[in-house]
């Protein structure tokens, strides 16, 4: 029977952690620390993120886990997690190019041609570009297989006409992953193409959408006979659904590896916030039983995410097929992040609702902003309802119903 004790931290793991930690201490400004918040404006955060992703590459951590042929740095899953943990712990900014680094890069690696990998991966790894997604449409959100943005084949080019919506951060992006209809309008998943498009192409127009947070993070992108070389199609014309599913699976499974450390930091910040906040009655909020109970629930939610993620990592390392662990990750982290920020704003009372323009806004409106933003988390990348359908049908084997 198994009776082994946990071994001491093994050499390579501790060594890599020390390397990342030393580098972070060197590159982050000395005033960087637990009270440090991301810039309060979207443009400010994007500027921070773009500068940061270049620093990550210069520091030797670009393309962690991607092949050296394309400028990446081979790394184990453990090292990638350690990098995420140390960056979260140091409150490092998030890269601006989330879609390129975390979604397109693994998708291209799996499904791209040699030429596509050589052309698109190095700039992503060097942090020189920013990608976005143009998948959803005004009339086709959750029902992604029904997209109607049209692309006609003209020689060795696609000619794209249509309208895309919910294209996060595309006003800051250079390139986009596009899903367009190349088959008959009702061909659903069989007639969709996945193409990589330069957003400076003639005929592309981007309009920002004011969001409930006060930021215009989302956009509509209008396509008017935009010409896209066939060489930019990933896999083949009409085979884009498979590529999109691969990208979406990647997007949803980022949860465990990358987000748990960041959520753990939010719990830590929440404890600190409750300690310095005076609640009604003049006592620190941290002494309020309601707040204490809520903090424990949030911390336990994050612990559950972490432990379920560890099960997935162990299963993957032992060569087991991905189990049900992955399917619950997106559902659980999005709801957990909502509960965390809801508690923060609730314990602050009316002051919690002061947004960034008010000089008394708590932490420059950080908590109010993210509380509002977290409502998007249970909607994007497959709503919580879609995730529940996936669990019910693919994991529990319940029949598909409409």
């Amino acid at each position, binding site marked *: 029977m*198994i009776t082994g004790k946990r*071994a001491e931290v093994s050499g390579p793991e501790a060594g890599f952690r020390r390397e990342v930690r030393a580098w972070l201490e060197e590159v982050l400004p000395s005033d960087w620390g637990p009270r440090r918040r991301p810039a309060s404006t979207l443009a400010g955060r994007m500027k921070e993120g773009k500068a940061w992703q270049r620093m990550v590459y210069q520091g030797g951590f670009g393309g962690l886990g991607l092949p050296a042929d394309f400028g990446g740095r081979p790394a184990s899953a453990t090292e990638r997690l350690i990098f995420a943990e140390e960056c979260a712990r140091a409150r490092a900014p998030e890269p601006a190019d989330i879609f390129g680094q975390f979604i397109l890069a693994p998708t291209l690696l799996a499904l791209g041609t040699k030429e596509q990998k050589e052309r698109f991966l190095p700039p992503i790894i060097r942090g020189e570009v920013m990608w976005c997604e143009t998948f959803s449409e005004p009339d086709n959100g959750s029902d992604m297989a029904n997209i109607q943005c049209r692309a006609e084949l003209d020689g060795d080019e696609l000619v794209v006409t249509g309208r895309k919506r919910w294209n996060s951060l595309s006003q800051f992006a250079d390139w986009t992953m596009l899903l367009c209809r190349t088959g008959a309008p009702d061909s659903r998943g069989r007639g969709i193409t996945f193409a990589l498009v330069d957003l400076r192409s003639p005929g592309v127009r981007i309009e920002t959408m004011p969001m409930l947070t006060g930021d215009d993070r989302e956009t509509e992108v209008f396509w008017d006979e935009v010409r896209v070389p066939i060489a930019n199609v990933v896999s083949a014309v009409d085979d884009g659904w498979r590529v999109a599913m691969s990208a979406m699976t990647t997007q949803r499974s980022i949860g465990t590896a990358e987000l748990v450390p960041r959520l753990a930091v939010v719990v830590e910040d929440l404890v600190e916030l409750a300690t310095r906040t005076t609640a009604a009655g003049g006592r620190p909020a941290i002494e309020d039983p309601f707040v204490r109970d809520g903090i424990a629930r949030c911390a336990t*939610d994050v612990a559950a995410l972490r*432990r379920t993620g560890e099960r997935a990592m*162990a299963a993957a390392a032992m060569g087991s097929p991905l189990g*049900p662990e992955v399917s619950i990750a997106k559902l659980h982290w999005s709801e957990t992040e909502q509960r965390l920020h809801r508690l923060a704003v609730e314990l602050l009372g009316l002051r919690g609702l002061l947004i960034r323009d008010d000089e008394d806004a708590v932490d420059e409106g950080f908590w109010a902003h993210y509380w509002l933003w977290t409502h998007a988390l249970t909607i994007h990348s497959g709503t919580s309802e879609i995730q529940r359908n996936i669990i019910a049908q693919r994991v529990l084997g*319940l029949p598909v119903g409409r």
Partner: protein
Amino acid sequence: MAAPAVGRGTDLEDLDIPESARWAAVDAGLETMRRRVGEYLARPESFAADLWEVDARWRTDGDAWRDLCAEHGAVLGDRGRFAELGVLAEGAGRAAASIPYIGSALSALVLAAADPSALAELRGGAPGALAWAGPDEPVAVRFVGGLLNGTVAFVFDGAAAEIVVAVAEDDSGATVLCRVDDPSLVGRTTRGIADPTRDLATLTFDAVPASVLCGGTEAIGLLAELETAAAVLLALDAFGSAQAAMDLAVGYAKQRVQFGKVIGSYQAVAHHCANMFLLVENARSLARMAAWSVAWAEPGAALSAAQAKSAATENAVEVGRLAIQVHGGIGMTWARPTHVHYKRAWVDRAALGSARHQRERITTMLTEAQPRGFPPMYRTPF
């Protein structure tokens, strides 16, 4: 020490997983034991109906417990094998089994060092009980002049116990742990608790002779260990119970037809099932990890145990509620055992440090000064 073997002959050291995920790899090695314990304890779906026919009250299955002890009794009182003990807890919850594992396991932890012959009896299948109201209740038993006096309202396996260990205070108010010399002198009242699978008895000590097992700081340390162990066992029991309730509900949702379709095809029902799945998986992760943290005597074990008890029991209560809802009217009857698992989860949540008590402990641990050498953000080692 050589690295323990994990599933399929892989070496733990060679796996691409962080230090913190090793429990999950090693845990895979318990699957065979889980399956065998599960098969042994499995009850027919009609067991609740049978229970109602006979007497909807607890009766301890001493034979089953002796059988299990014949194979696994050595895990009692052996902290390093706590994860295997956890397999029994999980299996008991899943089968809603009436086996005296909680009382036996907790009293074995106390007797392990002090009383080897009593430990051997427990390992042979003699039921034990720990007369302790739990960490959220004051100690109401006094030990003065070699005699125990007082009452503990709810003692797991208290009616069946052949070995009784008591948590008491001496005349100076210091904690002492003692073994009752003659258990037949202990007054026992079986309670009519809603969960028909549990032996929860009120034990009354009226000048009952007992022998001290330990006192002083040793007793305080042991009590803290008992709190952690009890939390993890009840978390695993609740997880097993939640898994059983969910399996019943999902199975029913696949066969019950209304409006010409199985009810599991309706999104409202399907989403109840998906919610149950999320709750069960989170309970599984937290409870099993906590069991390994106890087995490995990790510094974060108390926090992991509190999180496991809090979440697994709350989740099991919610899963039970949803499972009854998915069943509709039949879920309200003894024709299906769903409500038995639900009631069991309520006991797990309330007993030996309620879920609310655990959450208070969690926040206390999160706000305490940082233990040396720990990264701040998880408060448990990487």
